[in-house]
């Protein structure tokens, strides 16, 4: 690594931190950005800065948004009686692609995992409980992943919400054990939403 000038070294190090990028890919991307026409690299840097500065969290559901409320929460056509709880904003995109769900979401930003130092209080679970008490939805759908952490997170939320909402259901996991919603194809996910079971 010593052969690289410090700014290049820094760039490679930052790229390596990204999910799915190994040392080899980080080097390739860094070289690609610096070789030839550098305006592409400047546009990328600009897009990163702009997204970081302008994209925040929806104050209601913690989805990504440029405004106070995300596009789903501010859509009057959505059914506010049903809230689907997901781990990440990318899960919303996966479910939206199925066109099978017309309710609202709540992003808890992760899952309970003591081994990673993540407890329920580190997630947007307290905010979910407050929201349910305030908005009084008719149904909560728990769509966390099917691995043991996702399952435990759903169980935890179900216990917390008991008595505050009439119906709590868990999506049926035809999704392979241990996988996240992102990797489930649209048909499986649509079936999972239809076949949800009551907790």
């Amino acid at each position, binding site marked *: 690594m010593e052969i690289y000038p410090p700014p290049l070294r820094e760039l490679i190090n930052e790229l390596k931190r990204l999910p799915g990028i190994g040392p080899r890919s980080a080097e390739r991307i860094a070289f690609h950005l610096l070789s030839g026409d550098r305006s592409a690299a400047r546009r990328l840097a600009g897009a990163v800065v702009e997204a970081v500065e302008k994209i925040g969290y929806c104050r209601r559901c913690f989805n990504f948004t440029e405004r106070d409320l995300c596009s789903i929460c501010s859509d009057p056509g959505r059914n506010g009686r049903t809230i689907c709880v997901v781990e990440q904003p990318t899960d919303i995109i996966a479910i939206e692609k199925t066109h099978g769900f017309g309710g609202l979401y709540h992003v808890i930003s992760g899952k309970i995992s*003591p*081994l990673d130092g993540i*407890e329920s209080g580190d997630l947007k679970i307290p905010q979910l409980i407050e929201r349910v008490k305030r908005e009084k939805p008719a149904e909560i759908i728990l769509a966390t992943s099917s*691995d*043991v952490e996702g399952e*435990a*997170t759903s*169980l*935890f939320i179900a216990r917390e919400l008991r008595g505050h909402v009439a119906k709590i259901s868990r999506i049926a996991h035809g999704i392979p*054990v241990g996988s996240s919603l992102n990797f489930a194809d649209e048909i499986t996910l649509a079936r999972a939403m239809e076949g949800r079971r009551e907790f």
Partner: protein
Amino acid sequence: MYIEELNIRCFRNYGLARLHFDRGINYIIGGNAQGKSNLIEAIYYLSTGRSFRTNRIANLVKWGTPAFQLKAGITRGAGISSIGLLYQIGRTYLTLDGRRARRMGELLGILNAIIFCPEDIYIVKGSPYIRRRLVDIHISQLSPLYLGSLVRYGRVLRQRNEAIRRGGGRLSHWDRQLVENGLEVMRARARYIERLNALAQEAYGKIRPGEGLLMRYKSLYSDLAPGKEERCYHDGLRSARVHDEKMKATAVGPHRDDIVITIDGRDARCFASDGQGRSVIIALKMAQFMLVKEVAGEAPILLVDDPLAELDAGGRGAVLPFFTERVQCIITATGEDGLLPGKRFMVKAGSIEDV
């Protein structure tokens, strides 16, 4: 079932090697430390995704190279006919019939093998962990769903223990999964050990007439009232809670299971003679062999990396039936002395020659 061909790249002391096996007896002949056992280890690894000699897969890579690769061509009644394994920078990649598999677990049950190796003695004399591991690998080969329950149980257990270390609080969201998966594991183990015991008893009786072998599943499972297993398990977790918090770990569950082996009522772990110990192992392997044959509908292959000459006369007689059946055997030997007819591979310092 037969392994027809084995291709090796950078595994243990081998650079590149290719072996074509006979469907009968195959001898791998060579001096000590020339790499005989490494070939058995490679086949066993293709069978189970594990080594019987190390838990560190990185140890299997040839010194000074970054990766190893194993490929086997197999013939069996139906299904997969080629297995490829590539280990590289801490990760293992599995391909079945040329297609990348999603999970290592998919390997299990494809190339079924029964192994005899010097490490077997720990099944009798070693810690419960070794007996659990043996049973777990074997059940996984017979029923792929078992591995899923086992892996999930282990993961929930580690999460629960960490939650306890971090000061506990509510554990019920872990306990439900712990009980669900823990029961799956214990039910499968109980069923398996019962069948294994019946077959092993019969085999042992032939090797050492007049002595009685018993393999008994020692587990929380036997304390759970039939029909109310779930409730009892939850009760057990609740009453152990204070103890768990003091010990910073979960006290009850299948991770504490053992398989107690007794001969004429005496615990084999402490009291078995060398001869009895070896007879237990042979009886156990014969029982496993018969179970695989029954479940898979095909005889597994036999890997022998243990000088058979060491077995006492009774024991040697008991291994022979394997050979008279149409079973493929791959056997290591130091010399030609006393070998049966069959194919021979001469191994010297990581190079192999067919004879």
